[in-house]
Structure formats: C-alpha cells, structure tokens
C-alpha cells in the first residue's frame, strides 16, 4: 500500500501513473474523493465539528437549554459557574448557558442567510461583469468599489440607523456589505475561465451566451465561491456580534452573543464570566468556521489541489 499522500497525486510524478489513479478513482464519486481529502485535514474536521455543534445548538435549543433564556431570577444574579448553572448567571439572574444556546440561533441565521443573500447577488453581478466585460463590467465594478470603500461595520451601522433594529435588518445590512467581495471573486475567476478553449468550443457549438454562463462558466468558478461563502459566514457573525455589542442588534432581552458581552462589561471585575463565556463561544465558533473555510479552500480549489 502506498503512502496516503499518493492518492492526492502529490507524491507522484505527473504523467505515468495517471491511468492507475483514474482507474482507482473511477469507483468513487467526486464527493467521496473530496471527502477523503477533507478528512485528512484535521483543522477542517475540527471546524466541521464546531459548525455541526453550533447547528445542533441552534436547532435543538429548546431541548438543550436547561432554563428559559429570557426568564430573570432563575438563579442568584452574577453568579459564576455552578452545577445548577454551568455557565453562571448574568446580572438579571438569567441562565447564561441557555442564553448562549439560544444565541447560536441568531448567530447562525444571520451568518448563513446574509451570506447566501450576498452570494446570490454578488455572483450574478460578477458573472455578468466578467463575461460581458466592457461598460457593463465598468459600471458594476465601480459600484462594487464604492461598496468596498466603506468598512463593513460602518456601512452596517449606517443602514441599521436608517432601517431600524431587528434581525431582518441586521441580515440585510450584513448582506449588502458582502456583495462586493463575492462579485470580485467571481469576476476574477470568470475572466480566467472565459478565455478557456472549452468556452470557445461551446460558442462554436452554437451554445448561447446565457447557457454558456450557466453551464460552462458558473460550474467552473464554484470552488472559490464556496470557499468565500464559508469564510464570510464567520465574518457575518462577527459583524452581527459587533452590531449587537454596540446595541444595534436585535433589542433586549433577545439572547445575542454580542449584547451578552456588552452587558457583562459593567461587571467585568466582579463577574468576568458574563462577558468572557459568550466571548469564548463566539471565538470558538469563528475559529471553527474559519478552519472549515480553509479546509474547503484547500480541498475544493483545483489550483491548490494540484
């Protein structure tokens, strides 16, 4: 049996064993082959585990949380971790663990929905700009540059100020801020892909521009987009937490990690767990998502794979 690296083609000379590799790979679907590469990346597996844990927390919050996250006085106020309250209680005597578990819901919903929104819009803009070029490209990309000019948190604060508070508005504000990076990443790859001979070959076959974009260009630029999405989810969660920290998130008493950290500031000396425990939850989630994103990049991006 060869070294495990060999299946990657890393340790192998390029030409000769290609046939063996192809034969070995033929039995596996593309997804299985990807999984074999992914599973070897420890950081990515850890990231995936964290992500699944957060998803489970969000999905089963009512079952998992020991107390009502909004109910005050379920324990003595500002008490550190005990057997009754594993993560302690906050200044209102609310159970921190329950609030963290429920907080995962908002973090995930904002992270995923806002990224999906910005991905769809950004990818479409990037495809159009990259494929057609010319003035369409110039107009779209200048608008994107304009969006890029604002730090995302400032843009979000401005939008929240106009639209008002609430989860929906946080999602919209974060999504608008992330359109530009998706458009840029997509356009950059489209520019490379559209010069590929197979695009010319499709054009020669009489395939229309829209069909070429949908069937030939888009499938060839998905890897960087998926990676971008995975990495942006953590960015979206950080932005959401930042907004909540500043008091621009969902109004209290909604359990949100960002506002929980903010609430603990006044008690940071006497009861440091009120700020730090949600902070650790946020940090672990972000690190996990970033590791997952990096793992996806390393295994999905064909340029890094070869």
């Amino acid at each position: 049996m060869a070294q495990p690296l060999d299946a990657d083609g890393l340790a192998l000379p390029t030409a000769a064993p290609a046939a063996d590799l192809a034969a070995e790979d033929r039995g596996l679907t593309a997804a299985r082959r990807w999984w074999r590469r992914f599973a070897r990346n420890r950081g990515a597996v850890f990231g995936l585990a964290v992500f699944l844990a957060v998803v489970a927390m969000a999905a089963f919050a009512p079952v998992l949380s020991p107390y009502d996250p909004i109910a005050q006085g379920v324990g003595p106020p500002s008490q550190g971790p005990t057997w009754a309250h594993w993560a302690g209680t906050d200044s209102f005597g609310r159970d921190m663990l329950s609030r963290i578990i429920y907080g995962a819901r908002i973090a995930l919903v904002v992270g995923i929905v806002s990224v999906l929104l910005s991905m769809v819009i950004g990818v479409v803009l990037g495809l159009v700009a990259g494929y057609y070029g010319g003035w369409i490209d110039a107009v779209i990309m200048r608008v994107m540059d304009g969006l890029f000019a604002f730090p995302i948190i400032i843009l979000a604060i401005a939008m929240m100020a106009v639209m008002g508070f609430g989860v929906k508005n946080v999602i919209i504000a974060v999504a608008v801020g992330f359109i530009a990076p998706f458009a840029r990443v997509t356009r950059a790859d489209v520019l490379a892909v559209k010069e590929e001979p197979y695009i010319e070959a499709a054009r020669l076959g009489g395939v229309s521009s829209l069909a070429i974009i949908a069937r030939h260009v888009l499938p060839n630029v998905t890897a960087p987009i998926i990676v971008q999405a995975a990495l942006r989810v953590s960015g979206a969660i950080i932005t959401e937490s930042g907004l909540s920290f500043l008091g621009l998130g969902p109004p209290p008493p909604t359990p949100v990690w960002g506002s929980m950290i903010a609430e603990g500031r006044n008690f940071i000396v006497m009861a440091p767990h009120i700020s730090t425990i949600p902070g650790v939850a946020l940090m672990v989630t972000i690190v996990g998502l970033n590791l997952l994103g990096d793992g996806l990049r390393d295994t999905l991006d064909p340029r890094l794979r070869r």
Partner: protein
Amino acid sequence: MADPVLAVRDLVVEFVSDDGVARAVDEVSFTVGRGEIVGLVGESGAGKTLTSEAILGLIRCPPGRVSGEVRFRGQNLLGADERALALIRGKDIAMIFQNPGASLNPVMRIGRQLTEAMAIHLAEARHRLRRRAVDVLTKVGIPSAAARVRDYPHQFSGGMAQRVMIGMGISCVPSLLIADEPTTALDVTIQAQVLALIRQLAREMGMAVLLVSHDLGIVSQMCHRVIVMYAGRIVEQAPVATLFHAPAHPYTRALIACLPGRDGEGRLGAIPGMMPGLKAMPTGCRFHPRCDKAEPRCATEEPKLRQVGADQIAACHLAKSDG
C-alpha cells in the same frame, strides 16, 4: 471543382490599433471541395489560425476588421448575423482545436458535453441524443463508450480527449471540419491514430476538411491539396504530390528541406531569419530577405500569385510560368 463546400475569396483580416493597421491575413483565396482534405501550412504567425477563425466569424471586431468573401455552400458567412452563424457553427461547420484537454469543460461529464451541441441543432429527445453520444464515441474509437459518457474530461488521456473533440465535431454530421493543429499536443503514435481517424471520417461522411498545421510531414500524409502561407499571404498552392516533388516557391522548398529524414543528410535544414512582423513588412516579395535565390527585383516588385503548373499556383518571380 464543381460547387466547393467552402470558397474563400480575397479574405483580409486586419487589426486596427493606435499605431496603424496591421494586416494579418492578406487577400487569401482558396476552395475546399466535398470530401477533400486541404492543408493550410506555414510558420507560427503566418495567418493560418486567423484565416480559420475568420471563416467561422470568431474574430472580434473591433479591434479586428474582416473583409472579402467566405462562401459556405453558397452562403456568404461574412455578411451573416450572429444568429445565422450560431446555427451553422457546430452543425454544418465544426472546429477542433490544438489542445484537446483544455477544450473540454472540466466539470461536465463527457456525455453531457456531446449532447449539448446536439440538443441545440437536432430536434431529438434526450434519451435518443444520449444514444447518439454513445454512438459517436464508438465511432471515434473510444472503448466501452457507454460507460465513458459518464466520465469527466480528466479521466481521458490526451489522445482520447482529442477523439472526444472529434466526436463532438462530427456529432451533427458537418459538411466542413476545420482542424487547427489537431495533433500538435499529442505524441507521435497517437498523432498517427488521430489523423487516420480524421481521414477515415472525411471519406465515410464526405466531409470537407481544412487542416491547419505547421507540420509538413502531417500534411503530406493527410491532404489532397496544400496551401502554403507566409506572412499573411498564400505563396503557393498545389496538389500534395506536386508540392512535394516540384515545389515552385523557394519558401516551400525551404520548408521541405527542413523536414527530417529526406536526402539522408545528417543535419536538419533551417530557414535563416524570422518571419517579418506585421508592422515591418519588407517591400516587394515578403520572403526575399530570407530567400537564398532573391534577385534585386524581389525587393521592389511584389510577385503576384500565378499559374505555374497544371494545378499549381505560386507567388514568385522566379517560378517558371505554366510549365
């Protein structure tokens, strides 16, 4: 030749830029008949590929400018609009490229790529198209084609990928196949197989083939007629046997001398110098700075293409007239 499939007349391809107009293809005229394989040879930059792209309307204008006439079965393609061209491309005229691996979409199954063009041009049900895709792959010599349609391009070797490309090309039964350096990226043994396949398909289907190549060796085996281009112009055109046994243009002679294995000489011949750039065309005959037979008038007077043999035309002052 009665009713050629493709008749190109006075084709000119120019590129307009800030510092003037560069004429990359200059008044090129030729025909390709049904079932005929015509070779288009010349060095890199001679205008071979541009000529074939101009035929299919693939040159971006601007910066390009294409004039002349390209008649395909009587219809002038240069005047045709994009929609009319899209109907012809892939159906009646197919093109295969130099780099077969890169000409296939890496994330699309082979079968899907084969049926894509067919679905546009042939009004047939999906499952019948899929059958056809398998038939086409079988025809171009891909073993266990029924299983291979589910494979991705990276699972094919270069030669097999070129067979797939040829299969895509012929799937709608075109009357003209333009093959631009179809075997350049393949090794010699595979080259021979692929060329034999193209020749066989041309014969079976009565398909006209325009074979663009810089390799006279390939052309000598494949073609009925050969067109030699130099610096954007046709310098000689003749049936393959005539061209090799009685080349009329010094450039053709020089090219033939560069082929290995003739005359039993130890050293390979080479043509001194480089082909002139588009913006620094020599006056008179464009080949005269590199020509070992050049006379004073070659530098001033431009030779016209004229009849120099029964079926042979050449653009050289020194070629004998109609022998």
